[in-house]
């Protein structure tokens, strides 16, 4: 590596977007904090409005920032080295997301293998059981809590199984969209991407159906003990990630229609597809540990 063809690394000029983004997060945090207090206490307040304002500012920031970014990319300011920074950055971001889910999976395993058996008197905890809730018997899914809440367990067949198949198929179509892009087969790219988005939307629709069923028919809610807590928090955060992934895919779809991306310059597409595969893998883990086992 001597003086040979060195592409200068693109360091952007000053940009207002990061600061706008910080303001957006400020409004979101203040708004969400107040909103949570107001909702749980049934109080009147401005929390919801501040939160909405924050989300709008965030939206404006994202559009502005990505617009600048796309223009820079399409005028060729980005070197391969910069592409490397983006790819590595995205990989580490996904790793951080993995760790976020790990915290909730950890809570699930702890509840199943430690706290519930101990409450039931396992190991040397006979007195815990005797003194606190003598009638409690350890079981998973925890359909009857020590405190006396009862619920039904969510089965894995039916909607969850259908959702698993849909999401796995969407990962396949997402992959073929990528292949289409690399082969410069725009038709394949557009169709496969469109089908992936459709799968994403169907998944979310079914997930909402499942939640409605759980709340109205089964009595399974956030408040029905640690089984309900882990069920809704894990599937809920996964659903939020699917929502985000679907929005990203939709943006990619419109960029494809505008003729963006070439076989050797399509970081945004690649990042979206990585994200989609990640969401898929998380679902497979969920399906095993939350639904089946």
């Amino acid at each position: 590596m001597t003086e040979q063809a060195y592409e200068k690394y693109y360091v952007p000029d000053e940009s207002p977007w990061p600061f706008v983004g910080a303001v957006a997060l400020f409004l979101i945090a203040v708004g969400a904090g107040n909103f949570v207090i107001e909702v749980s206490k049934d109080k009147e307040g401005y929390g919801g409005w501040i939160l909405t304002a924050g989300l709008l500012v965030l939206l404006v920031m994202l559009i502005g920032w990505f617009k600048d970014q796309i223009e820079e990319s399409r005028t060729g300011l980005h070197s391969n080295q910069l592409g490397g920074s983006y790819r590595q950055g995205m990989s580490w971001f996904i790793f951080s997301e993995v760790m976020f889910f790990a915290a909730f999976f950890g809570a699930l395993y702890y509840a199943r293998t430690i706290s519930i058996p101990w409450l039931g008197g396992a190991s040397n905890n006979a007195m815990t059981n005797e003194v606190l809730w003598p009638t409690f018997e350890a079981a998973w899914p925890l359909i009857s809590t020590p405190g006396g809440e009862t619920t039904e367990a969510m089965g894995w067949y039916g909607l969850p199984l259908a959702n698993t198949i849909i999401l796995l198929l969407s990962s396949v179509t997402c992959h073929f969209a990528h292949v289409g892009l690399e082969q410069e087969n725009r038709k394949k790219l557009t169709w496969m991407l469109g089908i992936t988005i459709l799968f994403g939307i169907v998944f979310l629709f079914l997930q909402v159906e499942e939640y409605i069923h759980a709340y109205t028919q089964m009595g399974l809610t956030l408040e029905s003990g640690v089984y309900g807590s882990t069920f809704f928090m894990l599937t809920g955060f996964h659903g939020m990630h699917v929502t985000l992934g679907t929005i990203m895919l939709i943006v990619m779809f419109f960029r494809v229609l505008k003729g963006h991306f070439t076989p050797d310059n399509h970081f945004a597409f690649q990042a979206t597809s990585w994200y989609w595969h990640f969401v898929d893998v998380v679902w497979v883990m969920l399906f095993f540990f939350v639904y089946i086992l």
Partner: protein
Amino acid sequence: MSTVAEHSHDDHDHHHHAPSGIKRWLYTTNHKDIGTLYLWFAFIMFLTGGAMAMVIRAELFQPGLQIVDPNFFNQMTTVHGLIMVFGAVMPAFTGLANWLVPMMIGAPDMALPRMNNWSFWILPFAFLILLSSLFLEGGGPNFGWTFYAPLSTTYSNDSTALFVFSVHIMGISSIMGAINVIVTIFNMRAPGMNWMKMPLFVWTWLITAFLLIAVMPVLAGVVTMLLTDKFFGTSFFDAAGGGDPVLFQHVFWFFGHPEVYIMILPAFGIISQIVPTFSRKPLFGYASMVYATASIALLSFVVWAHHMFTTGMPVATELFFMFATMLISVPTGVKVFNWVATMWRGSITFEIPMMFAIAFIVLFTLGGFSGLMLAITPVDFQYHDTYFVVAHFHYVLVTGAIFSIMAAVYYWLPKWTGKMFDITLAKWHFWCSLISVNLLFFPMHFVGLAGMPRRIPDYALQFADFNKWISIGGFAFGLSQLIFLALLIKACKKEGEPVSDRVWEGAEGLEWEQLPSPAPYHTFETPPVVK
């Protein structure tokens, strides 16, 4: 593609000078500007958190309740801890990484300059939320910086929701900052800058960044569980629903223990840069330093429950965490040995950064030894939640992390400003800090061993004398930092003698050998070739 790229660079080559005005600081993408912002922010937070420590020490000056009510005392201990950890130490290290990593590896800037600015500007807002929650009805967070459930769920006030979201955005800031550092180091090294040629500050930050990305999301997870437990009726930490308050401690410390290494590994890097310079010898055992840092980082994931020896874990678990914790002293010992061996038979001079570095080595080691005592499960039952713990972590964080940050500022400040700082003031700062900090924290060992509990605004009469001296040490240490403030203001006004490019006689590395003092606004736009 490269031809197009060549053309467009020319548009950017004209601005070698810093733009001016407020917009420069709000909109900047320059790693040096952002580094400066981080460092000043950290210093302001250090003084803010320090002021809270003064409130704590004033209340503890004598037994009985006299100055603040216990609820406010609890808020002070909580917010003092949160500010010092997330507002002072971590941003200061990130600021140093911003300034130094690109210059040390021959990169034109951080890998993702706009995201870099975003990571910074989130922080002032996050702390604005945290600090303003102190003025809400019912007060701010009062459950200790570790926010154990059920203190933070069943027994906390409404401001907990704001606390949770401010921690969320702090975490977002840290994760983005860490991604930036890690990508910069992986992707932006100048030709010839191999892994084993990287300065140790870069190595330690690389590993720190990995830890940050691995554990900050876990913190986000645990505060989210706390939020839903408190406000939406989930049962993660509620035994009546099948959860367990101890689960909170497991998840929190899975974040929390790597977090303490996040606050000390960059310090190891700084000391490993400074000691060789003023000993005029290459660092002893470079490779072993790298491996030791990596070992500490890996071990940090399997020691978390040593914070929880008294929670009623099974004996086998206690033993595992005791031995794993003690294992950490091996790589840490390698480091201390290497620093001492670097100084051995060197031509040592005692400039200000070296004085702080030597103080670090001695006092951090002291903090490490008390850590080793705490790691012993059976005796921890006596030490747990006493002032002995407070003494331990203040030795590793104040005379450890904070002293290393001060050493780093003194070491690189002339490179940043091009002028030598006021050495007389610096000496006053050093000696006042050194003496007062030991007066402040050393007697805490004794009162702790004798059983004085932490986080309580009152204490038994037998501890009165020691606490008076501790408080006097605390006030003196607080005042000493105003000397540092005066010195920094003078340095930013560019007062002082101009310095040479190398600044310190024995300094080695790209920033000393290839860049002028002060370092220009843009550096290494064409990468240097490292031999």
